């Protein structure tokens, strides 16, 4: 019965790395078909083994509220943090569209975003939005795979100079992602002119 222990561990490892959001034990179990599904214990054991295996690595496997994720060790933050420092990467259309859909349809799963946009939403885009804290995981849909439900955050409102979601441009043409992303772009440009670095070191007091 069940899969080889090493294979289970590899799947757990790969899935935690590939998932843009933390993976719960149940979420990990659901990657397996019924006959081969490892028990909760087996998944936790695999996670334990991975934590040991990564003891000497630059990333660590940690548990947070909604599950497990790999995270770069704090030791490397001074260097790795520079990835975010400079270039306020320009927002791609794909990113803006994804964001617009999340803003208007929240909470939504990635699959729903994909079905609206008609193209695959890359992990990088979700990751970037999570990194900027413009979106967050608001829960999980109770269907196989327990996909994360994504929603926008207060930081999103701040970044786009919106007081609340009601201030979003009205969704007159439900399908017209084009005009919505244009609106978002304008909002962002206006917000930028007014001021404030979007994130960045804030001095105390």
């Amino acid at each position, binding site marked *: 019965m069940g899969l080889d222990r090493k294979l289970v561990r590899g799947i757990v490892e*790969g899935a935690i*790395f*590939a998932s*843009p959001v933390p993976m719960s034990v149940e979420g990990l179990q659901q990657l397996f078909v019924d006959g081969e599904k490892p028990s909760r214990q087996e998944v936790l054991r695999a996670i334990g083994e991975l*934590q040991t295996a990564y*003891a000497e690595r630059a*990333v*660590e496997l*940690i*548990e947070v509220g909604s599950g497990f*994720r*790999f*995270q*770069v*060790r*704090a*030791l*490397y*933050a*001074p260097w*790795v*943090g520079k*990835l*975010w420092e400079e270039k306020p990467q320009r927002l791609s259309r794909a990113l803006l569209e994804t964001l617009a859909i999340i803003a208007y349809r929240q909470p939504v799963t990635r699959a729903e975003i994909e079905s609206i946009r008609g193209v*695959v939403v*890359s*992990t*990088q885009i979700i*990751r970037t939005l999570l*990194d900027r804290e413009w979106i967050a995981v608001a829960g999980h849909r109770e269907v196989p795979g327990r996909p994360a439900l994504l929603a926008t955050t207060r930081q999103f409102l701040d970044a786009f100079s919106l007081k609340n979601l009601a201030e979003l441009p009205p969704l007159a043409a439900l399908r017209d992602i084009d005009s919505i992303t244009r609106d978002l772009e304008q909002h962002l440009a206006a917000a930028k002119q007014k001021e404030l670095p979007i*994130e960045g*070191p*804030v001095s*105390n*007091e």
Partner: protein
Amino acid sequence: MASLSAPEAEVAPEIIAEVIARVYGEAVTELPEDLYIPPDALAVVLEAFEGPLDLLLYLIRKQNLDILDIPISRITDQYLAYIDLMQVLHIDLAAEYLLMAALLAEIKSRMLLPKPVQTGDEEDDPRAELVRRLQEYERFKKAAEDLDTLPQEGRDIFPALADAPLKIVVSEELMIGDLPGLLDAMRDILRRAELRQSHVIGSEGLTLEQRLREVLERLQDDSLVMFHELFFLQEGRMGVVVTFMAILELLKQKMITLVQESVFAQIYVRRMDPQSAEAAWA
């Protein structure tokens, strides 16, 4: 005009022998062999073609013919029958399909004309341009298939990403730079401890060394513990202060580190390096 030449006999029983289309004035009563497809499926079939060149290639390949030597008359007839049938079935045809039909018909008629005496050998076969286009299209059709076999991100390939380290990482930095923040947190804890002061248990010889060990034990695994979770409010002000001093001492010795995602966010405490810390306290 030649009648449909290709498909002899072999009419599928469900095809009714009535005029189903007119090709260049000729009544078509039988569907060409290639068209034995349930009519409903035709729309789907047409969608399967990427255009007239693709359809033409299909007709040629299906009969194992060489592009270089298309029996233009036969292929033209088949193509036209196809197109005509589409129209009968009210399937919207892109203009390109009709354009190709016209081109084929033209080539066919040119090939039927007696050749004028040639002045040189430069005169092109009327099929040459079409053949060139078919070849060219076929190359890219194949290239597209090849491209589709490459490992594709999102389909076969999944990038492995780790989260960014928590943003502001401090041990000594926090001691200096964000001491106010730390003290603020402390003040909150003390205030809460005072609220509980009512049932203070008489201080039972709490030593700093003992507290150091306890704090480290709390941080045993690599996990982050919230700063305020290290305090036991029941111990009252004294216990809280001892714990605070223990934390400061551990920070100084770089046994632990404080982590804060942003300035007003929770302060977390974590062990610096489990191995060396273990050794130091063994």
